[in-house]
Each structure stands twice: as C-alpha cells, then as structure tokens.
C-alpha cells in the first residue's frame, strides 16, 4: 500500500478506495437510467448518479461544486423532472421495441467508437503531476473565495452572459407553457347553465374504492359489474393510464398499450 501510494502520489488510498466504490455505482446507475422502462425509475437512478458525481467532485477538491451539484441538480433539476413526469403521467412505462431501423446498433457502435477513441486519446496523453487546486485556493484565501474571484474577475462577462441565458430561459419557459385564453372565462352562472343543458347534469361517479386500489385512476364498478369509464378523469383516460381492477381480470396491460401509441 505504501509503495503503491508512493508510486501514484496524487491520490490517497482513501480516495482510491472511494473512487473504486463510487465509480461502479455511478456506471451502474447510469446504465440503469438507460434500461429502466419507467421514466420515474430513470429519474431516481439519475439522482443517484448525480449524488455520486457530487462526491467525486468533492474528492477532487471541488467542494463548492459538489454542494452546488447536490443543491441545484439533485435538488432543483431532478425535482423539475419529477414534476414534469407527474404532468405527463408518472406511471407510464416505455416500450423498448426499436422502431428506427438499425438505430440501436448504430448508436451503440458509434458510441463505442467515440468512447474508444476518447479513451485511446486519454491513455496516450501525458498529464501533469496533478498538484490539486490547493495552491490556487490558498492564493485566493480559501476555496470559495478562489471560485468567486475567478467568476467575478476573469469570467465576469461569461457570468453575465450566463445570467442573461438564465433569465431568458425563465421567460421562455413561461412563454412556452402559458396558454392564451381564447374565450372569455366562464363564470359559475354560465357553467351551471351549461351543465344543466348537457346530457349529464348530475356529478360524474367517483372513482372506485377497493381494498387493493384507491386512486383516481381506478374506475368504479357499475351495478352489473362493468367498469364505468366516466368515473375516471378525462385526462387519465386520454393518457391511457386507467387502471382496471383485477376483479375484471384485465390487469395492467391496458396501460402498456396506451403508451405504445
């Protein structure tokens, strides 16, 4: 161990140990993102990878970056992903049948090509002795100070540009998701009139309440034992994520089909 350390001075044993534990975790988590049928699972594996990466940042002297990684990525971005997932239907799982000819093979081959060549490049490159960022930190009087100094002096224009990007993104997101009201908003009086005139003046039946399932996506059963689609919100029906009870013996296959559209 001692010899090993002296042979490879820049890294401590602890770091090596941590790397060899964490790196596989990161790779496995990354692969799991790829192979999870449900987007939610992918998101969770993604969070795992990010946290691992945050640790790796910290191990390499990027304490500030590691914290930001946890706060911004794992905290904010991943939550955003999950929100959107909720909006589009959290339960849907993807089909893995490839529709584009040779896409998968070509993708893997090309990716291996890129990876292979990058690894070849790295392996043949000569690197400096990896002094670490300690000296830079000390020159600025601390790690955060060093980063702050870099951002607000050398990279101030980049910083400003990035802030513009962020603001634009915020405005853009609002503009994209904002829906223009095309008709005047209906007031309660109009709504009630409309409802009375429709074929269905009474409230729709509420979703089914069962021992196994008790959720808005489970239809209620009519007296003759058939499921009433009207008891499930339109949105879910459109998404095809209506969950039929096992009583009907239909199972969950419906949901899969719905997503394969």
């Amino acid at each position, binding site marked *: 161990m001692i010899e090993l350390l002296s042979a490879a001075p820049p890294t401590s044993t602890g770091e090596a140990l941590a790397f060899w534990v964490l790196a596989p975790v990161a790779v496995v988590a990354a692969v799991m993102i790829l192979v999870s049928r449900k987007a939610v699972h992918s998101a969770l594996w993604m969070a795992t990878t990010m946290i691992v990466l945050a640790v790796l940042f910290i191990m390499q002297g990027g304490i500030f970056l590691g914290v930001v990684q946890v706060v911004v990525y794992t905290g904010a971005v991943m939550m955003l992903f999950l929100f959107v997932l909720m909006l589009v239907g959290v339960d849907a799982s993807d089909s893995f049948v490839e529709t*584009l000819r040779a896409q998968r093979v070509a*993708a893997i081959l090309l990716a291996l090509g890129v990876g292979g060549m990058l690894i070849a490049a790295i392996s043949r490159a000569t690197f400096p002795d990896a002094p670490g960022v300690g000296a830079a930190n000390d020159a600025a009087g601390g790690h955060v100070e060093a980063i702050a100094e870099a951002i607000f002096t050398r990279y101030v224009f980049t910083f400003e540009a990035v802030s513009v990007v962020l603001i634009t993104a915020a405005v853009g997101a609002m503009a994209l998701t904002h829906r223009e009201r095309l008709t005047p908003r209906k007031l309660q009086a109009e709504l009630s009139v409309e409802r009375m005139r429709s074929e269905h003046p009474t409230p729709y039946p509420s979703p089914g309440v069962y021992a196994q399932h008790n959720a808005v996506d489970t239809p209620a059963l009519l007296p003759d034992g058939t499921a009433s689609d009207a008891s499930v919100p339109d949105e879910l029906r459109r998404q095809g994520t209506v969950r039929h009870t096992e009583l009907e013996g239909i199972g969950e296959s419906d949901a899969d089909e719905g997503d394969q559209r």
Partner: protein
Amino acid sequence: MSAATAVRWSEGGSQVISEASGMFGLTWLLIALPLFGAIVLLVGGRRTNSFGPVLATLLVGFSFVLGLVLFFQMLGQPGEERAFNQSLFEWAPIGDFSVDVGFQLDPLSMAFVLLVTFVGGLVHIYSLGYMADDPDKRRFFAYLNLFVASMLLLVLASSYVLVYVGWEGVGLVSYLLIGFWNAKPAYATAAKKAFVMNRVGDIGMSLAIMLMVTTFGTTAFSGVFAGAPEASSGALLALGLLLLLAATGKSAQLPLQAWLGDAMAGPTPVSALIHAATMVTAGVYLIVRSNPIYNLSDGAQLAVVLVGVLTLLFGAFVGTAKDDIKKALAASTMSQIGYMILAAGLGPAGYAFAIVHLLTHGFFKAGLFLGAGSVMHGMDDEVDMRRYGALRKAMPITFITFGAGYLAIIGIPPFSGFFSKDKIIEAALADNIWVGIAAILGAGITAFYMSRVMFLTFFGQKRWADETHPHESPRSMTVPMILLAIGSVVLGAVLVIGGRFVSWLEPVVGPEEEHDFAIPVLAITAIIVAVSLVGVALAYVMYLRRPVLVEAPTGSVLTRAARQDFFQDAFNESLFMRPGQYLTRFLVFFDNRVIDGFVNGSAAAIGGGSARLRRWQTGFVRSYALSMLAGAVLVVGVLVLVRL
C-alpha cells in the same frame, strides 16, 4: 483608277477599259429601269394592277432602246476601246479588300444587253396577251422585270461578287416564276428543286470567289485576269472547275441538269425567256467571261468540253422521247447549251461561236417556246404532242414562226442555227475528232427530235377532241413570235458572215484560231447538213408516214429510259435525297434524344439524387442525433489520428 487602263489578258484579247463617260455613264440605268418597275409593282400592290404590266413592258423597252443607243455609240469607238467601267460605290471595303458596285460594258456584255432586253421586251409583250386573264398578272410582270434587272446585273457586273449577286437574283426569279402557279404542289416542288440545284452550283461560285480573294486579293475582273498568269496552275484549275460547277448549275448541264425539265412548270413566256434564251445561258457567259482563267488551264478546258459533249448528247436523247412539247423543248435547250459549253471549252477557237450560238439560240428557242405557248393557248393548255396534229391550218402564223425556229435549230442553211452550229462543230472537229463526231451525231438527233415535234404538232391527222377549238393567238402574242422568227432566219448570217461578230468580240476573247482540216471545210458543212437531213427523214418515216398513237407506246428500253431522263431523278434521289433525309431524321433524333437526352438526363439524375437524399431526412430527431454522433466520431477520429 486612272482614266484608261490597258489590260491585256493572257492569250486573250486586249482592251482598254476607260471610265464610263457621256452616254456610257447611263449604263446603270439599263438595270435601274426594270428594277424600278419591279419595285413599283411589288410595293405598289393592287393599286398598280391597272397600269403595272404595261409600265413593266415599257421600262424594258426603254432599257432596250438605251442599250441600242449605247451599242451604236460603242460601234463608233475603235475596237480596242470599246470597254467602259462605271463604278457606283464601294460595297464592302475591309482593309485592302474591297468590292465595288460597278459595271463593265464591253462588246461581250453589250451582246447580252441587247439579247436580254430585246427578247425580254418581246416576252413582256407576249405575256400581255398570254397572261391577260391571270389574276396575279401584276406579280408576274414584277418578277419579269426583276429578272431582266438581275440578268443585266449579271452580264454588266465588273466583278465576280456582283456577278454572283445577279446570278442569285436570276435564280430567285426563276424560282418565283417556276412556282408562279404553285397552287399545284408539283409546281412548287419543281421550283424548289430548281433553286436548290442552282444553289449546289453556287457552291462553286462561292468557293471560286473565296479562292480569288485568297489568291488575288480581289474579285474584280481586271484584277483577277491581270493576276491570272502568275497564279499557280493548281489555283487556276480549281478556279476553272469551280466556275464550271457554277455554270453547270445555272445552265442545266450534267451533272446538275435535272431541274430544267421540271422548270417547265412555269408559264410558257418564262420558259422562253428564262429557261431558254437568257438565264440558262449565263453559264456560257461565265465561262467565256473567265476566258483568261480557262486559257491557262488545259485541265479545266477539258472538263468544260466533257460536260458540253455529254450534255448535248444527253439532252438530245431525252428530247427524242418526250411527249410534252415544253419538256421536249427543254431537253433541246439543254442540248443546245451543251454545244455552247463545248464551244466555250475549246478556248479562243470557240468563245465567239459559243456566244453566236447563244444569241441565235436565244432567238430561235424563244421563238419556239412562244410558239409552243401559242399552241397551248389555242389548245386549252394541252401539252401532250400526241394530242396535237394538223394544227398548221388552224394556226398559220404560229406554224410559220415555229417552222422558222425549227429550221434554224436543225441547222438548215441559211437559217441562223446553221451558221452558229456549223462553226462550233468545225471547231470541235479541229480540236478532237471524237468530240466533233459526237457533235455531228448530236446535230442529227436534234434534227430528228425537232422534226418529231414539228410533225406531231402541225402535220398529220388531228388527234384532238372535237370540243377543242384551236385558234390563232392574239396580236400581242403573234407579233413577238414574228419578230423572233425574223431573227431566227437572219441573225446567224448577219453575225457570222464576214466574221463580224468574231471581230466584235476579239477585244474580249482574243482572235479566232485558224484551223486546218484534211478535207475541205465545205465538205464538213455538207456532212453536217446531210446528217441533219437524215434525222429529218427518219422522223418523217416514223411520225408522218405511220399513224401516231394518242397513247404513247411502251417503246424500247432506251426510249423508256430517255422518257425518265435516263433516271436522273432516281439517281439524285437515291444518291442524295434519300440519304439526306435519313441523315436529317437521324440527326433530329440524335438532337432530341442524345444531346437533349443527356441534358434532360442529367437534370433527372440530379432530381432523382435529391429525392434519394431527401429520404435521409426522416424527420426523426434520433436519426439526426445519430448523424451528429457520427459526425462527432469523425471529428474525434480525425483529431486523434492527426494530433496523436
């Protein structure tokens, strides 16, 4: 140019060409008068219908009178000073090269001026009667005037370029008049044929002009002839052959003879003026005019003689078989011009007689054609001689005038043809015995076929239908015929006896060569006349003693061949026309399919390629991402390979 330039052309005549002054300054007017008439009639349109024909006739008459005045003026000059040059303006000056629009009036062109304006004037008068009822009479006279102007331009020009202008002009008018009644498709075809075959001859004229400019730097007669002795023999031979090619086209000589028979589609006065008396003799004029070139090239002269002999026999044989009176006369014209070409090919010995025969032929052949026209006029435009017969009583004047022409052409003394043809045959005999024998043989055949025409038309039994009422033609037609008949009778004697015309032409073509014969000249003359009489007798036996069938008998192989003009049309068609049509069709196909096919093909290839490329744009984001990755692989790969 100095006031007077002495020009001695090699072995030829020598004449002093001086600037035209006094009356001779009016030379241009000879051409301008009929040209003016043509323009007035063509541009004036229907407004000139009433007075146009008369105006046209008068203008040609004025030209003739002016020509006559100039002739007598010229007679007043000493022999060598009878040439005058009039330069109007520079036509195309480029650097050292220049073409002058200028005229040369000398004894040779003077003879033509008189012939053209006199016969032309008579034909105009004749046409007043002949075309009286034609709705397009005005146009006809306009063309006739244009013809006279072009023909005069041809013979008066002082340079080959200007000759070419007149040459093409007469060709154009010939086309217009052959196709005058082009409502008949066959006539339109005949006109086109004539023009195109003439144009083949014009290749010779064009090339000759090009060669002249390259060799001499000019196309003016004076320059070319002055330079000729120093030119290479190859150039002279080429010039001679090219000019001969031009002459064969215009004068319907072998091998470009095929158009003349069809040209009879034109109105008969046209046949008389253009296709008998004047235009077709332009080839003879060209060769005689170019005598300084031919004198220097034996090869070219030999070719001329050959063409002449072959054509005179060819035309004579064809003439024996034709039943259409005009086509028989056309064949005769071809044969007679053969004599002239032959004479022109004999060199100084023959030039003068070529022109003499040309002049006498101009009279008697025009007379014959006008007579034929008169017969057709009286016979409701019937042209088949087998349906004539015994017309001498119905048309006495026509009979007599036609008879005068007939006696002249077969060379019975003292009619004019006798003098001119006799001299040519003598010269031919002196040159080469075989050529002479061929010429004598031709004379015999001439006598035979012309007697045939005469007997079939005016003697024997009447073979026309009863509803036909042959009658004598009106005065306007008979008077020109009578005048021409008088010419047919006396002109030969006037010109030849005492060597008048020979000495008249001497400044242009040089002195006549004396030739010696083993037997007395008188004996030769007797032989020629005897051969002609044999021909007459043969015709008498065949067409007067025996009854003539209305339908032509099948005849021997030779007769059938002669009727078909010895398959000249089939020959031309199979050798030139058909292959030409196939070539044209092939080229049209080649152009549309191969060249344009290549163009459209490349367009289609690009279009197809784009359509194929477009399929790469699937619209699937992931495909695009894939190609981006492929690009990344490329970039990284290149970087790795290059940098490391």
